[in-house]
């Protein structure tokens, strides 16, 4: 049984069909990438899986149990976490408190604030924010806030983490650094990752499998190299040959 | 009972109430739609307009219909001053966070308290009224005093004029563009600052006029503004934010509901109807007035 099973999921906003009968499965321990132009429906997919929104039709199953209609906090406690494409830190709280909240309320469910803070510090160290723990989250740079998003997601103790364009806006050295940190954390905790990325190099290096979304439909699925050569993908990105 | 319900008298009352709500709500629609901030002091402008008309009559003997233009002008100037002095700064800051929106609301509430109590101090809390155009006119089985008829006609004329302006004149179109989509309006060359200023002028001015018209038939008191603010909000939410036509339609719906509701029950239920509508409308639209922008949960 796959860890995550997305079955014929569609999402409609009024006149706009954001997703059209998308189906795929993710095995436990896998690292799957999603690519596609803006508006392809990638972030919408994350919102549906995390429970921030409801699919118009179709089913989403986590370890065989349907999570459609469940509230986001329930889904989080079942082991799903996500980052937001446009970062949403708790700006008025400290960096440590941001991550402690995740540790306190997420799937890990630490018993006390003290324990949660301890776990939070550990994660901050792993992601490279250890020295900024007491700073207000709003004072971090964009790169720092993106790391904070990741730290929060990890601190929930979730086994399945969805990363939404965490590399966007980072310089190449920053990308390398973050990539290394993510790989290490993933290895240590045995995480399953679903990653949206525009930086193709990251997708190729990090992922076992890549999904390609185009205008709400899944047009290709396979190994990174295979997808890169897929005629449907080439057509979507470069246009048909005359 | 059905005969009373179908009476022309009641219909006229419903129309009159609807017209005054429409005028007040129009002002709120303009100011609120551009500001995206809740001006809970809007009803107090109505109150000030009413007092202005009262003082014109008692101190200078100027009949209300004659002082309307002056009151509208003063209201407009007040609006422009408020925009330049306070709201423009608030607008710039409010884009930062929704919490600032709640704080801005508190700010306007504080201003409302100040204005209301200042009026109470200056004018005393005793309701004031004056007599004007009190001859009774008969239209079939409907008996009206001249003042009610005049108030309704002027309100209707003003509404028509403003709607025409917004639909036909270039500046009016710019306003509607701004209300609909601020960034897009700026991109196509609309002078956002000037149009916002004009919205405030028109919004405050029409509220002041509504108050002056009201003073012809009702007494004015320092704390009369709040129910108008509430009614205006109900109307704006019902009709759809920024929809001028929707606001007018909603105003007449509310006016009818109130008038006929009171006729069916009793005058003491008027407030229950108004606040009941207010609560109902807000609760059934939990995404507020910007359904397009936020996600419905």
């Amino acid at each position: 049984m796959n860890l995550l099973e997305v079955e014929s999921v569609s999402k409609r906003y009024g006149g706009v069909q954001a997703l059209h009968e998308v189906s795929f499965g993710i095995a436990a321990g896998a690292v799957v990438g999603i690519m596609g132009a803006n508006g392809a429906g990638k972030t919408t997919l994350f919102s549906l899986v995390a429970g921030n929104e409801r699919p118009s039709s179709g089913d989403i199953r986590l370890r065989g149990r349907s999570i459609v209609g469940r509230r986001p906090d329930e889904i989080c406690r079942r082991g799903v976490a996500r980052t937001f494409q446009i970062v949403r830190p708790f700006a008025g709280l400290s960096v440590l408190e941001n991550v402690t909240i995740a540790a306190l309320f997420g799937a890990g469910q630490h018993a006390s604030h003290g324990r949660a803070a301890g776990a939070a510090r550990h994660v901050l160290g792993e992601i490279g924010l250890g020295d900024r723990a007491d700073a207000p989250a709003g004072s971090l740079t964009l790169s720092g806030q993106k790391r904070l998003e990741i730290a929060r997601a990890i601190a929930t103790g979730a086994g399945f983490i969805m990363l939404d364009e965490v590399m966007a806006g980072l310089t190449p050295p920053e990308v390398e650094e973050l990539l290394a940190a993510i790989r290490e954390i993933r290895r240590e905790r045995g995480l399953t990752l679903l990653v949206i990325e525009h930086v193709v190099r990251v997708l190729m290096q990090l992922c076992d499998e890549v999904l390609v979304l185009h205008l709400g439909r899944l047009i290709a699925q396979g190994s990174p190299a295979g997808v890169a050569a897929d005629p449907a993908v080439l057509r979507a990105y470069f246009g048909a040959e005359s | 009972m059905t005969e009373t319900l179908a009476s022309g008298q009641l219909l006229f009352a419903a129309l009159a109430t609807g017209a005054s709500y429409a005028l007040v709500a129009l002002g709120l629609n303009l100011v609120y739609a551009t500001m995206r901030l809740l001006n809970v002091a809007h009803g107090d402008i109505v109150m000030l307009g009413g007092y202005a008309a009262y003082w014109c009559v008692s101190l200078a003997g100027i009949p209300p219909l004659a002082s309307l233009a002056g009151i509208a002008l003063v209201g407009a100037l007040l609006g422009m001053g408020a925009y330049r002095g306070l709201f423009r700064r608030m607008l710039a800051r409010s884009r930062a966070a929704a919490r600032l929106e709640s704080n801005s609301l508190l700010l306007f509430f504080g201003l409302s308290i100040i204005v209301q109590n200042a009026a109470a101090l200056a004018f005393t809390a005793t309701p004031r009224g004056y007599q004007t155009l009190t001859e009774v006119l008969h239209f079939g089985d409907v008996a009206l005093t001249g003042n009610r008829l005049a108030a309704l006609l002027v309100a209707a004329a003003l509404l028509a004029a403003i709607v025409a302006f917004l639909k036909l004149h270039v500046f009016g179109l710019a306003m509607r563009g701004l209300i609909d989509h601020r960034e897009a309006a700026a991109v196509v060359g609309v002078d956002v600052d000037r149009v916002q200023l004009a919205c405030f002028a028109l919004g405050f001015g029409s509220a002041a006029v509504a108050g002056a018209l009201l003073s012809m038939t009702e007494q004015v008191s320092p704390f009369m503004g709040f129910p108008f603010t509430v009614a205006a909000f109900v109307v704006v939410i019902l009709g759809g934010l920024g929809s001028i036509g929707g606001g007018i339609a909603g105003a007449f719906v509310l006016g009818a509901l109130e008038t006929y509701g009171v006729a069916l029950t009793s005058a003491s239920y008027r407030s229950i109807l108004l606040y009941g509508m207010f609560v109902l409308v807000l609760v059934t639209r939990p995404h507020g007035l910007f359904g397009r922008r936020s996600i419905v949960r």
Partner: protein
Amino acid sequence: MRSHRDLCVLLAVMALAALLPAAAGEYWVGIGISLAMWIALTQSWSVLSALSGYVSLGHVVFYGLGAYVVVASWNALPLAAALPLAALAAAAFAFLAGWPVLRVRGPYFVILSLGVAELVKFVVIAVEAGQGNASRLILDTPDLNTIYYLMLGLAALATLIAWGARITRLGHGLRAIREDEEAAETLGVPVARYKLTAFVVSAAVPGAVGGVMALRATYFEPLQVFDPMVSFSMIAMSIIGGSDDLRGPVVGAAALTLLSELLWANAPELYMMVLGVLLVAFVLFVPEGICGRLLAARPATR
């Protein structure tokens, strides 16, 4: 921890305040009752509004309902039952109203709470009118000193509850909700449940406070009791005192009680105007309140 220390200091001060009736006359006991009342109300309000960011402009509804319960049950129930019933009634109303009302966000929640309070006010007026009452009178109420001790107890209770709310999971969750409700929910905070809990908890003590004030006034008139200025004052005291601090409501209540003693007798409108000006000034220039300003020098350790 700072909040533990603050709590001990506050409770010690309140224990000292219990000596007031022995030390001073009726006039001062009266002021003491006012001060204790505002502390109890504002501390309770802050559990919901300061922590979660859902600013309630209609909190007087709980106060009014509590007063109504005590007055209406005066001949049927002993005070020892009526006061807890008042608190319970307020909490129950919060529980029922909370479901629909807490779905509304930001400034819309603020005006909705005001609308609900006004609606309840007019419904109570109608119900009373239906029974032929414009107002109610109660007789043989407890003496001033007893009322003082009751109110002081409520102030201490409210402070304890406010402290408890802040240091437990509930407090941490509410603060996250205040910062970004959707992000908080995505991280596992049970947002709907916490908001409702805060709402109910913040309603109970004001219900009891309303009941005690009914005893003091011996007179219940809905229009007077469900006064929106009570809600407004709670907010002003919290903001002026400092909403993120356990001592904030105490500081704010003290400052404004002093102000009202100076101004109220001569010109209640002037007092309200000054209150309005203070609120505007603090929201614009000192949003962290007096306590927040005082703390600016020292780093925060929570």
